[in-house]
């Protein structure tokens, strides 16, 4: 089976999720197209991480459906996950493996040949500057080093959809620039990125479209220009964000 190019990369249809009595996400419907970098913004506790966890299959929606590249994440989870890569804000990494062993594990998990793996890895090692510590046990890594290795693991199999929560936390400015370039190249190559962040500057410069979630509700979605129109603001994304989430509070 091959993926239909016309099919959106991510589809959330009427998704709703609650934790006990707390409604975390309400009636969320959203489509993210292939080759698009979508920035997902919102205040703390707005429902960003819950939405992301539903996209990657860690949580099941109480109502509604989630599809990745045409595959329902619930019913055909493995097929959908084969097209996904997820980088959480606190990434997991086996502490008793070296960075290289971890990357080899991920490559084998996605059935990438040794030749392909080595070719891709060579580029990622150079671009993310991870060569120096890649053969040390990951337990000795700083947060930034771990983040770089996890990013390399996510990009190693060239996923159709990359879901990423706070991508730049702990990275030095040079790596931030490299990651921005990698993201741009990934979307130019047809990949999709769904990125949650509090760093509005990154969303402003990288995102094709921006979605703002507040109290579990998607209150705005569109290009930066469309959001400015909606908020009746001509200034930065920060102004737009504050304006829209303030309206939500009211």
């Amino acid at each position, binding site marked *: 089976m091959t993926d239909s190019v016309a099919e959106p990369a991510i589809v959330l249809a009427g998704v709703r999720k609650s*934790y006990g009595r707390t409604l975390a996400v309400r009636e969320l419907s959203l489509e993210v197209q292939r*080759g698009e970098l979508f920035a997902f913004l919102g205040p703390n506790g707005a429902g960003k991480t819950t939405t992301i966890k539903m996209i990657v299959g*860690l949580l099941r929606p109480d109502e509604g459906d989630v599809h990745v590249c045409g595959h329902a994440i619930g019913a055909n989870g493995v097929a959908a996950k084969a097209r996904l890569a997820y980088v959480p804000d606190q990434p997991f990494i086996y502490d008793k493996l070296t960075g290289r062993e971890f990357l080899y594990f991920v490559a084998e998990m996605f*059935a990438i040949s040794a030749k392909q793996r080595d070719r891709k890895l060579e580029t990622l090692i150079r671009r993310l500057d991870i060569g120096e510590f890649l053969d040390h*046990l990951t*337990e000795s890594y700083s947060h930034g080093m771990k983040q770089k290795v996890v990013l390399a693991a996510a990009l190693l199999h*060239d996923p159709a959809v990359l879901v990423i929560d706070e991508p730049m936390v702990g990275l030095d400015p040079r790596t931030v620039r490299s990651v921005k370039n990698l993201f741009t190249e990934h979307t130019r190559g047809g990949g999709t990125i769904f990125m949650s962040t509090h760093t509005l500057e990154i969303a402003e410069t990288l995102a094709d479209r921006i979605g703002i979630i507040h109290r579990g509700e998607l209150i705005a979605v569109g290009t930066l220009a469309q959001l400015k129109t909606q908020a009746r603001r001509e200034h930065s994304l920060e102004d737009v964000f504050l304006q829209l989430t303030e309206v939500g509070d009211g």
Partner: protein
Amino acid sequence: MGDASTMDLMRDAGFSPDTRGSNLELLLRVRGRTVLNRAAQAVRDAPLRLTAAALLIGLIWVGLYGLFRLLFVHLSRTPLEATVAIPLVFNFFFIAMLALLTFSNAIIAYGALFGKSESPYLLTLPVAPLDLVTIKYLECLVLSSWSLILLGVPMMFAMAATSEEELFYLFFLAFFLAFIPIPGAIGLFLAWAVARFFPRRATKAVTLLAAVGLTAVIVTGLRSLQLGETATEVWLRSFLTRMGFVQSALLPNNWVAAGIDHALHGHFPQSFRYLGVTLANAFFLSWLAVRIVSGRFDRAYDRASSSRGGGRRLAAEASGGPAGWVFFYLPLPLRLIAAKDLRTFFRDPAQWSQLTILFGLLILYLTNMPTLRLEFSASGWFLLIPFLNLCAVSLILATFTCRFVFPLISLEGQKLWLMGVLPMPRGRVLLAKFAFSMTVTVLVAVGAMSLAAFMLNLDVVWTAIHLVVTMAICFGLCGFSVGIGARLPMFGQSNVARIASGLGGTMNLLASVALVALVLTGVGMATWQSLYLEADTLPSVRSLMLCAASGLVSVAGGCAALWIGSKQFNRVEV
């Protein structure tokens, strides 16, 4: 456009995301690699620790071998009794193991499947739930069954020494390995059921289940021990009848016990038949548990991750009050740190539940003591039983302080900067930890000992002696755990069990057991002197001096450990 590049790459790699096979082999290889890396690291970085651990295991094995050897030699002197007793001993041993391993497998499986570390990561990869559950199940079997191996190996050698059958070793080992998956499968299923049906209070549910089970076992045991008839033979017959259910043909402990007994006597065809029954059940239960759990895993995982217990707020409110005033005697900064630790203690079911279970069982035993109908006044029992109670309380205290007090300093590791910037000398943090642990242990231990003295109608002077010694032991054990915890910390580790089982934890355990043994030897000598040399119910001045010296040794030991720990803690760079 589209994800052409992704698909190209996948095709180049001969990969079709829809026709993937099992990842179990890959996951097993990663486990193997992490074990090898861990072993290489231990050999390279901590050879002393490795040697100490090997020596300790060797010591435990030698001790257990001696104990089992004594038992089996004693039994073999009376062949008729041995014929009845040996299968019964095995039956009891394996039914106890069945209960303990089921419980430990349930706890480990819950953490492994629904915890926050590896499972969420694997769930975002194209790993089938069947592979994920299978790898976690195998991991649980290895992690939870080491205690059975630890107990089983010396038992095997002790038994083999009384048997002339060489094939016995092979059969014994095979029975152990065949038995382990049975409680493992039940534990896996229980963990899944708790996540699926009681996710809000998962830890509490597992703990409650275990507490109820253990209480039922203890109550049944105590009732069976009650001497309804004075004649030993009648009592023994009645006891065996009551315990008859243990030998039910439907229980796996009976298959293993009968099989081992047959192997011991060289009846290998019969033993092989029992081995077949055990193996078939182990495979079937494992297959069933893994299939059920993996088939319904995503819903259980979602329930476990989505539930935010309303009880947490209640627990926070309930524990917030007492934590504020229970340390009224401490100066303000120390009071705040001790209150913080008490709140953490009350809000972590793993901590308070284990203390509750340990002392709950002790209290159950103490309150049932009069029903044993021992003639206290007619013999030395009137002092011996309270002394044994003191031994039990001391050993439980040592277990508790090693498991929960020792890791307190290490757990501050990631927040050490906070301790470093507090407006007080850093050494005082240790005092706060000590005050917290001392308060909790004294309240519980003195309560248990007072109850014991009341139930046994113990003389006031001896009651006072036992209470003072209990407080001194609390002082010594808390001082050791806090002091050694600061001297040999594991700041990078957040797992309490790993901190407690590390080098520092092992040293603390050995030191604590040595301290308890020293103090109890002193009190034991005083008790013996009163009972047999002076034949008096009241202690002589010499006995009093012995008890006081024992208590002082404990207090001095605690002070020394605190001093050493505080010197090191002041030097730690934040």
